[in-house]
């Protein structure tokens, strides 16, 4: 983009109260966590924690508060704390969310806030599941650019329109919120799942890629795109706002178009 902008004003009058501020809200919540400690108890159970939290706190902060002040054995994954690494997908009030992107103030405090591990992947401990089956599906769809042409000495050109065709699906952070919200995936865990399809989409529609056919072939499997029942749970769950079901539909159509 090379539009030159005019210099902004050196000084402006700010609207009063601009930039937020004001007193920081404080509130009490009950955090109801689905615990599972395989080394001490055979079954999962619920445990409640009463916490005092503040305006900008997220569910992740509440979990940290429990871990740091109440019970150090509470286990969950997290890293970036602002929704870009995909570590902390979990079921919050019955829906898959990232704990670090779910503000407590947006939830109903009159009822306990329930937090559980995502469904459909083997439960390891508390909120931690085995991600290996998930990544296995991801790896199976050949998630990498394949280009058979001669390597150019500069970059490969790509028009902005071609780029736009797959930009949405490049945003995926592999958090598994989608796959583990999918009723079909819950059944036997064999379905490739929306995340794998999203990542296949990212390459199938990349004008620089030559292996789209192979990926379509892979997803034309009995556990592939045709198992999707368009329940849209994946799209609702995706913290990156990826239009997952749309992407799956595009892949289905690509397979159809290619076979007919």
């Amino acid at each position: 983009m090379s539009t030159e902008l005019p210099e902004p004003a050196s000084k402006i009058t700010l609207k009063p109260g601009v930039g937020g501020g004001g007193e920081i809200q404080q509130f009490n919540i009950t955090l109801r966590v689905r615990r599972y400690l395989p080394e001490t108890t055979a079954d999962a159970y619920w445990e409640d924690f009463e916490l005092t939290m503040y305006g900008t706190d997220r569910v992740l902060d509440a979990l940290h508060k429990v871990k740091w002040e109440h019970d150090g054995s509470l286990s969950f994954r997290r890293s970036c704390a602002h929704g870009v690494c995909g570590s902390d997908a979990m079921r919050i009030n019955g829906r898959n969310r990232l704990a670090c992107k779910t503000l407590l103030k947006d939830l109903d405090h009159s009822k306990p806030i329930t937090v559980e591990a995502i469904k459909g992947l083997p439960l390891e401990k508390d909120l931690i599941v085995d991600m290996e089956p998930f990544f296995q599906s991801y790896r199976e769809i050949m998630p990498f650019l394949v280009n058979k042409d001669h390597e150019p000495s500069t970059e490969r050109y790509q028009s902005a329109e071609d780029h736009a065709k797959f930009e949405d699906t490049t945003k995926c952070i592999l958090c598994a919120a989608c796959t583990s919200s999918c009723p079909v995936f819950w059944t036997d865990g064999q379905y490739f799942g929306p995340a794998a399809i999203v990542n296949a989409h990212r390459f199938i529609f990349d004008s620089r890629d030559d292996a789209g056919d192979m990926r379509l072939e892979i997803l034309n499997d009995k556990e592939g795109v045709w198992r999707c029942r368009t329940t849209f749970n994946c799209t609702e769950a995706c913290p990156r706002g990826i239009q997952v079901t749309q992407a799956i539909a595009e892949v289905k159509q690509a397979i159809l178009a290619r076979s007919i």
Partner: protein
Amino acid sequence: MANTEIQAPRSGRIDPKYNRAKTSRGSFEMLAWLFMRLSGVALVVLIFGHLFANLMVGDGINGLDFGFVAGKWADPVWQFWDLALLWLAMLHGTNGIRTIINDYAEKALTRVWLKGILYVATAVIIVLGTLVIFTFDPCLVDANNVPLPGAICHA
């Protein structure tokens, strides 16, 4: 010092205990999926026509009897209509149930059994229904060639 050298993984955890059950290439699932949509569209017309003709016009459900059926099937259009409806609905429904069995039957063996029962039932119903439509004769007679009560026989 223990010297148990283990084979390293190519990727993932040390022991990828998970693997997708054998994959099936080929386009059966795609065709099944496509069939569900195509037959769905056709079924809308067929079923709505069927329901309308049987339940809405004339006396509605009260008009249904042997004579009504006989009247309808005297017309080859209705014969064909009901035949298409039978086949499409059965195949559509069977494939739908097949999907559901695939989803929820956990053991491979249960799957095989349930699907076996399903396919047999489907085959029986389709064959039976087809025979009924094609071999239908409004003039039903008993063993002595006497028309049954209610049968419609033109001389």
